[in-house]
């Protein structure tokens, strides 16, 4: 998808070190602009919170720029999504740890202590935004949310982001066999869940 255009930019690059720096930065700008919205949605479907998803995408962009800007532009997509997937896994670990801590606090102080989660700022999308998301692709979004996380992410990377099996395996830190299995299961489940929705399944 973006790779072709990035490739054209690389070949069009002028000679000279100054021009090369400019081209690399232009390529990176183009690449990030291409993937930022999709990656936000992919992260949002994984963590179900807009603000946290934005943080994860931002951290991934910064890490890509810091560590991998000198890699060939064609490698950026799997590298970026590998970073993002790692951030998503960390997010889940933090949530699990937070859940254990709050669980222990509740057990210790009893229900009278109230739910400590009330003290945490609510970062979930507001009602307007939620409505916007729901109206855009309600059935599909719901079906994607119901998939196991790895199946969901593999499916999105393959079907939406357009990564091939090898690139998806790099991004998901797993073998190509697992990618094929996850993708196939996700596809089957989605088709079952969406069989009544003509706009996705195309039934007449």
């Amino acid at each position, binding site marked *: 998808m973006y790779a072709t255009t990035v490739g054209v930019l690389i070949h069009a690059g002028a000679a000279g*070190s100054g021009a090369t*720096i400019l081209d*690399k*930065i232009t390529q*990176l*700008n183009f690449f*990030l*602009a291409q993937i*930022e*919205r*999709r990656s*936000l*949605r992919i992260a949002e479907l994984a963590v179900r919170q*807009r603000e946290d998803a*934005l943080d994860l*995408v*931002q951290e991934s*962009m*910064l890490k*890509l*720029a*810091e560590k991998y*800007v*000198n890699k060939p532009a064609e490698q950026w997509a799997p590298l970026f999504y590998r970073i993002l997937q790692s951030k998503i896994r960390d997010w889940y670990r933090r949530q699990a740890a937070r859940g254990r801590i709050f669980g222990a606090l509740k057990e210790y102080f009893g229900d009278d202590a109230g739910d400590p989660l009330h003290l945490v700022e609510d970062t979930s999308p507001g009602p307007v*935004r939620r409505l*916007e*998301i729901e109206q*855009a*692709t309600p059935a*599909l*979004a719901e079906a994607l949310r119901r998939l196991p996380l790895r199946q969901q992410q593999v499916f*999105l990377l393959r*079907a*939406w982001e357009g990564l091939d099996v090898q690139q998806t395996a790099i991004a998901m830190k797993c073998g190509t066999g697992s990618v094929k299995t996850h993708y196939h299961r996700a*596809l089957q489940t*989605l*088709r079952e869940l969406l069989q009544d929705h003509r*706009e*996705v*399944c*195309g039934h007449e």
Partner: protein
Amino acid sequence: MNDMEQSEIEFRRRVKEQLDAGISGLDEAALARLRAAREQALAIARAKQRITDNRQPFRLGFAMAAMLVAVMTWRLLPTHWSGSPPGDMTDDLEMLIAEDEVDFYADMEFLIWLEQQDHAS
């Protein structure tokens, strides 16, 4: 292409279409955050590129120094070798390795010529 593959491609196309529609209406706040994140990433990349670029002459210098040492060793050994390295040659090599001036190493042809002149005299 069989019917199943065709149907899968069509399903993917429709899913992609729906997902694309979902992100086309992102609110301005989210878009601004994404733009800011991108700008920050680009600033880091620019800084990183400058550092890499500044290191290039040093890398070139080291590479040329290594080549010079190899050439000098190759040229000196057959004429002066007598079982153990002569003191003056070791000193020369140490001096060459310790030298930090990139320009000095860069003028390798001149040094080789100079060394040939010394041998001739």
